[in-house]
């Protein structure tokens, strides 16, 4: 029920973005012929970055990693303003001609709608995550009019776990999203095409295409990241970056208009075999589009990589097809359009490393199953190859670098779920630094503690600790009992951690110094001890609970 509401809402959001993009494209069309047209993307990027920075205070970029992080770390908690902020900023970017896709923003907004719906209904974390998935599925299903792709994307990329409790609501949401889109925009499929004749000769050809798309997707991912890094490195203010990035895109757009915007029209023309560019120019177009997308997203614009992937993919497919015919003019292969489709699958699977999403998306947006065999081939080879070269997909790379990539049932996830407060043992007898060793030995006789925190008398501040194993030789020598005070025998170099530290870091410290116990000190006060045995205990219980199949 809630799933279908989330699906409908996010579907509406997606349709709104798509319709407004179409209208603004028509409205701006006459302006394209003026000499200053290249400044349009700059203005759009500028407005978009200023809007995100000043009004909603959210980072630029596409937003999918943020959703994934929120799902794994905060139970899918997203701010309400995320549900519209990305829509507006990406509308400004793409509408003005920036090279980006409208999908990631609607994913962000759909998931934020789902999350806030869950908050409104007072649902728990697990249910909220499901609703975030519903919102995402609804959004993708609606913008592509592809319910299965929405379902698969939401589970494969966003949630990362196939569970019955997730699949059914998400499927409902995806269908609801697609229905909303159909009801408002009465068109059956996003891209229409003539039926393809897939022949046997296409199978080896698609193998070659798969390799090409894998390479192009790795290149695309790398250049996106590199350009983004370059932009962060320079000290220009945000608005200047947006202007530079936008103008670059605009300049490329003058000579090659297909790089501008989300590029759905060009995809349509490529699929329906009405695309006319030479081999060389097609190759140039691939790299122009990659560069334009990197400039748009890296330098302050806002939008997704889905649509650019589709454009680059179909360009790659066509370039491959043309090259094939150039060398083997008599080859009995399917048409250009079919190869454009295969290229799209290859790029989606390669960049996102989500082979199922690639297959189902293309099957659904073109409404044809005749190409399913080469689709599966291209998709699986492309995603495997790009994973071999680049182990993390574009969405996960940033998260992995920050150590925030946490799928359910993984080590990082369990460690991040367990907090030090749950693990700490606070039943420790503290001893004063002014205690004589003999008194301490008397306490020791009656205690099972292996570690004694030593504190200052007046302030109760933690000064150091006494590890029984390290004082054994002194404890067995009665002559020493009256000769030392505890402050002389305590170890002041014991490494301590504080309650806010990540369990991951705490464990790393313990491993590095081969400790079994580590004291927790907060505001100079001794709180308790973290023991490895206790960690194992809770870790195992947590693992069982997270991987439990209901």
């Amino acid at each position: 029920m809630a799933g279908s509401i989330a699906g409908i809402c996010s579907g509406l959001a997606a349709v709104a973005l798509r319709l407004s993009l179409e209208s603004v494209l028509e409205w701006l069309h006459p302006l394209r012929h003026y000499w200053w047209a290249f400044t349009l993307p700059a203005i759009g990027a500028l407005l978009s970055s200023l809007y995100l920075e000043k009004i909603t205070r959210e980072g630029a970029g596409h937003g999918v990693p943020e959703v994934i992080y929120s799902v794994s770390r905060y139970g899918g908690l997203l701010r309400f303003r995320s549900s519209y902020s990305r829509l507006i900023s990406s509308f400004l970017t793409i509408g003005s001609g920036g090279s980006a896709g409208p999908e990631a923003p609607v994913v962000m907004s759909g998931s934020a709608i789902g999350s806030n719906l869950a908050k409104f209904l007072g649902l728990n974390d697990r249910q909220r995550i499901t609703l975030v998935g519903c919102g995402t599925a609804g959004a993708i299903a609606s913008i592509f009019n592809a319910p299965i792709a929405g379902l698969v994307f939401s589970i494969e990329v966003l949630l990362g776990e196939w569970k019955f409790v997730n699949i059914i609501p998400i499927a409902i949401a995806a269908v609801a999203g697609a229905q909303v889109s159909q009801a408002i925009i009465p068109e059956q499929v996003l891209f229409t095409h003539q039926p393809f004749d897939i022949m046997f000769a296409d199978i080896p050809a698609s193998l070659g295409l798969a390799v090409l798309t894998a390479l192009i997707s790795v290149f695309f991912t790398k250049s996106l990241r590199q350009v983004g890094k370059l932009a962060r490195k320079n000290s220009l203010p945000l608005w200047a970056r947006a202007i530079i990035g936008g103008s670059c895109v605009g300049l490329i757009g003058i000579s090659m208009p297909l790089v501008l915007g989300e590029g759905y029209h060009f995809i349509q023309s490529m699929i329906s075999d009405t695309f006319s560019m030479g081999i060389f120019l097609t190759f140039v177009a691939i790299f122009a589009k990659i560069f334009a997308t990197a400039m748009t997203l890296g330098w302050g614009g806002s939008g997704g990589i889905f649509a650019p992937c589709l454009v680059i993919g179909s360009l790659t497919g066509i370039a491959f097809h043309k090259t094939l015919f150039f060398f083997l003019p008599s080859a009995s292969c399917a048409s250009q359009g079919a190869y454009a489709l295969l290229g799209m699958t290859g790029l989606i699977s390669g960049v996102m490393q989500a082979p199922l999403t690639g297959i189902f998306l293309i099957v659904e947006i073109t409404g044809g199953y005749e190409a399913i065999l080469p689709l599966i081939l291209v998709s699986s080879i492309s995603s495997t190859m790009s994973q071999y070269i680049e182990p993390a997909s574009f969405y996960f790379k940033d998260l992995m670098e920050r150590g925030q990539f946490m799928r359910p049932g993984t080590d990082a996830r369990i460690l991040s779920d367990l907090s030090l407060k749950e693990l700490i043992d606070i039943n420790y007898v503290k001893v004063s630094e002014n205690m004589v060793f003999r008194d301490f030995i008397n306490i020791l006789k009656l205690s099972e503690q292996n570690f004694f925190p030593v504190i200052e008398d007046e302030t109760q501040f933690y000064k150091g600790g006494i590890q029984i194993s390290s004082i054994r030789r002194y404890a067995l020598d009665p002559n020493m009992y009256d000769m030392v005070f505890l402050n002389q025998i305590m170890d002041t170099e014991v490494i301590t951690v504080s309650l806010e530290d990540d369990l991951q870091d705490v464990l790393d410290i313990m491993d590095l110094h081969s400790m079994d116990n580590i004291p927790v000190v907060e505001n100079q006060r001794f709180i308790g001890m973290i023991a490895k045995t206790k960690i194992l205990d809770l870790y195992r219980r947590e693992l069982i609970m997270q991987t439990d199949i209901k």
Partner: protein
Amino acid sequence: MELSVFDLSKYLGVVPETIERWVRQGKLPVSKKGVNYRFHTSELQKWAGKHNIYLNLSDTKKPDKGRKSIIPLSVAVKNGGINFDVQGNDVNSVLEASIKRILKIPDDFKPDLLDRLVKREQALSTGIGNGIAIPHPREQLRYLHDSIVSISFLANPVDYKALDNQPVSILFFMLCPELKIHLHLLSALSFCLRNHEFITFLNSRPDPDQLIEKIEILQNKNSI
């Protein structure tokens, strides 16, 4: 560089059986299969990074800081020196007179050191019985380069409020730049002072060289 199962097991801190199971289950990148597995370091680094595993393949071990600066008791006594016929008739005056004669302590610090020693005696007497006391401050003396054990033979025994209420005539000053060395020296000294033969020897007010030699013998025999 190539590694064997045994090398890798040391680096990872697991037994070779675990390594073999990981290879069998396809969890570890292995470069040569067969009876003797071989691993490439570059592949292992990649694998460790991917799985968030801490892997330190360099052999350099951190030098053990604490052990390095620990010196034997005999050397500390050599540093501190031995003084005979120290004058004074109560705790404070013998402490003051002894400190004056310890050469290794800078003159500027002597009043402060005396203050600390007196405070320590007021908290709890360091007279351990048999006419012997081990005056020392409770804090580490960072201005010292070496640890010092200085022996003072008093001209007249003084009432030191020792555990056995006997007057004290021999003082072992123990002054260390680090608490860890202090504990070590204290433990070594306490060991020597449990030896009755050694105490009789001390009471005969021996020659400094003989005394140090005696300490060395005790030290070596018991490896402390």
